[in-house]
C-alpha cells in the first residue's frame, strides 16, 4: 500500500517536473483535499474537465504540500497556479499567499456566506483565500421525535434549553433517553465541546476555558445530560444508533450521519445545532483556494477560481468529493438522499444570523490529541463522574496552558487573534 503510494508520488513528481519544464500552458492545481485516488480522479474527470484550459490536478499530503510552497517562494521560482487546502492549513504558508481582494470582487454574485469570507482573511484586512467547499457537524432527528418538540420551538432554530426540554419530553414519552452524542472511544465528542458548546456559551475555546461562563455552561450541559442516552459513551458514529432506533436525536459529523439519511431518507431530518447565550456556535470545516505570490499565469488561476465557485461546478464537486457548496446554490433532485437532507441544514447553520463559527484547532502540531484530551477529560469528569466543575476546570486550564505555550499556537476563532501563544485566563 505505502510502496504503491510512493511509486505514485514518484511518478507524479516526474510528470510534474516534465510539465513544469515544458510549458506554462497548463496550470498546476496543488491541493491537500480530494487526496484519495478515486476522489482525485473524479476531480479531474468530472470537475476540472469542464474548465476552459488545461489543469494539472495534483493532490498532496500536508507535509510535502507546505514544503514545496515554501521552497518555491524561497527560490523565487513559482510553478504552482492554485492552492487548495483547509482553512487551518493556510496560516502556515500565509507569507506565500497573494491577496485576492480583486478576485473576491468578481464573485459578488456567488453569495458566499459573510462568515466564510471573513474567516478567509486570516485575521488580516485582505482576502487571503477564496472559500471553496465545506463540511460540518449537524443534528439529525428521527421524524417520530418531532412531535415531542417543546411548544414554540423551531427545530431549525433551537436553543440548548429547548434541546434539553425536548430530550426530557422524549425521555418521558419513550421511557428511556433518546438524545445521543458521539462520546465513544472513536467518537467526535471533543469537536462538539470545542466547536459547539464552548463558542455558544463563552464565545471562546481556549481563552475562557474556565471562568463564570464556562461554569454556567458545564452546569447546563450536565443538566441536559440527565436526559441523554447513557450509551452515548460507547457511540462512535451516530448513524448506527439512529438507524437502530436506540436514539432519535443526535449530533455528529455529516459524514457520520450519511448512512442514516441514505438508508431511510423518509425517516430522518437534519437541522442546525442549537444556540446558546453567545450565538450558534458551530464548527465549519472550510476548504479554500489561494494563489501563491509570483505564480506564472495569475489570470488563468483567477479564471479557475471563478470556475470552481460557479454553482454548477460546486455541485459537481459535491458529487465528486462529498464537500458541500459554499456558494448560494439550488441543489438538484438527483443527489444522494444524505446530501438532499443534510445540504439545507448545512446552509442554514452557516448562514444563521447568530452563527458563531469556531475553527478546527490550528497550530498545535502533534499535540492535537492532547488538546482534545483536555476537553474529553473535562467532560468525563464533570458530566459522567460528577466531579466539582470549578476544580476540574482549574486543573484542566493549567494543562491547556502548558500545551498552548509549548506549541506557541496563537488564538483561532472565536477567540480574538493573539500575537503570541493564545492566553488562557
Amino acid at each position, binding site marked *: 500500500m505505502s510502496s504503491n503510494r510512493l511509486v505514485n508520488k514518484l511518478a507524479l513528481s516526474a510528470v510534474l517536473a516534465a510539465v513544469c519544464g515544458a510549458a506554462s500552458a497548463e496550470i498546476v492545481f496543488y491541493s491537500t483535499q480530494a487526496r484519495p485516488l478515486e476522489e482525485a480522479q473524479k476531480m479531474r474527470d468530472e470537475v476540472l474537465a469542464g474548465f476552459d484550459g488545461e489543469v494539472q490536478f495534483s493532490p498532496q499530503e500536508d507535509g510535502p504540500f507546505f514544503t514545496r510552497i515554501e521552497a518555491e517562494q524561497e527560490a523565487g521560482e513559482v510553478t504552482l497556479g492554485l492552492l487548495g487546502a483547509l482553512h487551518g492549513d493556510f496560516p502556515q504558508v500565509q507569507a506565500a499567499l497573494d491577496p485576492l481582494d480583486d478576485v473576491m470582487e468578481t464573485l459578488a454574485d456567488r453569495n458566499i456566506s459573510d462568515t466564510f469570507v471573513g474567516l478567509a482573511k486570516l485575521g488580516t484586512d485582505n482576502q487571503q483565500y477564496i472559500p471553496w467547499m465545506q463540511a460540518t457537524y449537524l443534528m439529525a432527528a428521527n421524524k417520530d421525535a418531532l412531535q415531542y418538540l417543546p411548544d414554540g420551538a423551531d427545530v431549525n432554530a433551537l436553543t440548548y434549553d429547548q434541546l434539553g426540554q425536548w430530550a426530557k419530553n422524549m425521555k418521558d414519552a419513550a*421511557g428511556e433517553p433518546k438524545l445521543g452524542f458521539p462520546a465513544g472511544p472513536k467518537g467526535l465528542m471533543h469537536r462538539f465541546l470545542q466547536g459547539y458548546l464552548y463558542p455558544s456559551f463563552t464565545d471562546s475555546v481556549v481563552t475562557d476555558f474556565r471562568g463564570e461562563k464556562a461554569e454556567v455552561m458545564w452546569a447546563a450541559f450536565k443538566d441536559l445530560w440527565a436526559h441523554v442516552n*447513557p*450509551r452515548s459513551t460507547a457511540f462512535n458514529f451516530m448513524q448506527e444508533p439512529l438507524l437502530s432506533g436506540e436514539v432519535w436525536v443526535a449530533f455528529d459529523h455529516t459524514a457520520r450521519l450519511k448512512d442514516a439519511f441514505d438508508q431511510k431518507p423518509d425517516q430522518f431530518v437534519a437541522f442546525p445545532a442549537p444556540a446558546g447565550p453567545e450565538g450558534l456556535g458551530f464548527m465549519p470545516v472550510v476548504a479554500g483556494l489561494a494563489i501563491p505570490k509570483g505564480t506564472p499565469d495569475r489570470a488563468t488561476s483567477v479564471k479557475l477560481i471563478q470556475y470552481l465557485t460557479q454553482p454548477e461546478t460546486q455541485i459537481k464537486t459535491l458529487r465528486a468529493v462529498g464537500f458541500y457548496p459554499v456558494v448560494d446554490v439550488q441543489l438538484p433532485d438527483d443527489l444522494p438522499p444524505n446530501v438532499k437532507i443534510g445540504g439545507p441544514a448545512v446552509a442554514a447553520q452557516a448562514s444563521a444570523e447568530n452563527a458563531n463559527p469556531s475553527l478546527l484547532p490550528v497550530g498545535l502540531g502533534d499535540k492535537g490529541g*492532547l488538546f482534545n484530551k483536555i476537553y474529553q477529560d473535562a467532560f468525563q469528569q464533570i458530566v459522567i463522574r460528577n466531579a466539582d466543575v470549578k476544580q476540574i476546570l482549574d486543573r484542566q486550564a493549567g494543562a491547556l496552558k502548558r500545551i498552548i505555550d509549548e506549541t506557541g499556537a496563537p488564538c483561532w476563532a472565536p477567540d480574538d487573534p493573539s500575537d503570541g501563544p493564545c492566553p488562557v485566563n
Partner: protein
Amino acid sequence: MKHDEWLPYLLLAPSALFLLIFFVFPSIDVFLLAFQNSAGEWSWGNFQLMGDDFNFGPAIRNTLLLALAVVPLQIGMALAMAMAISKLNRGRDMILYIWTIPLGISDLAAGIIWLAILEQYGFLNTFMFNLGIISQPEGWLSYQHPLTLFFAVVIAELWRATAIVLVILVAGIGLIPKEYAEAGEIFGANAWKRFYKITLPLLRPSLQTALILRTLLAFEVFAVVLVLGGLDLPVLMGETFRWQFEYREAGVASAYAVLILVISIVFTLFYLWALRVPEEAQG
C-alpha cells in the same frame, strides 16, 4: 558426536534472533523511552503525567479487579472441565474441540459477539423482553451500571480465555500416571480425596504455567473491554493504547508499558514461589 552438540543451538538460532530483533530490542527501547522526556533527557516526567491522569487510578483498579475475578474462576472452571474430559471414553476429542472454539476467535471478535448479546437491543434483552421477564430492554453496558459492565467483561473473558487454561490442564492430567489413582482407590480413597491428594499436587507444574500465562494475559486485557465498555471501564492496556495513538505521547505510553511489565514480573515471581515444586519431588 560434536555435530549433535551444536545442532540444537543452530535450530534455535533463527527464533532467538527473531525474538531479539523484534521483541528484546523494542522492549529495551520502550523501557528507555519511558524514562526520557521529549528532549531525550532522563526524567520521571512520563510517570508523573501517567500518575496525574484521571484514568490512572481507575485503570489500575479495574485491571487488578478483573484479573482477581477472572483468573481464579477460569482456573476452577478449567479444572472441572479437564477432570470431566479425562473421565470420558467416547467423544472426548469432540468435546475438547468444541470447548476450545473460543481460542480460535480474536479477542476483538469475542468482544463484538458479547456486545451483540448484551447490549440494550441485543439478543439477551430481546429474549427476556419477548418472554415477558422485563418490561423494556435495559441498557446494562453503561457508566450508570458499572457493576453489570464489569460482570459483562468478566463473562466475555471467561468465555474467551478459559480454553487456554483447559488445554494446559488437560495436557497436564494426561501426564499423571494412572497407577497413583489406582493405588489410592485400592487403599480406599474416595474421588474427592484422590483429586486433592493425588491429581492436584501432581498437576502443580501445569497449574503454575496456566496461572502465569492467564494472569499475564489478564493484565493485557484490552479489546473486549474496549468493545463492551468503551471509555467507561479504563484498563491499563487501553490507556497505553490511547496515550500512544490518540494523545501521541509515546513516553507516557511507554511508562504504562513498563508498569504492566513490572506488575507482570511481580505476579510471575509470586506464582513461581507459591507453586514451586519441592526439590525432593523433582524428577
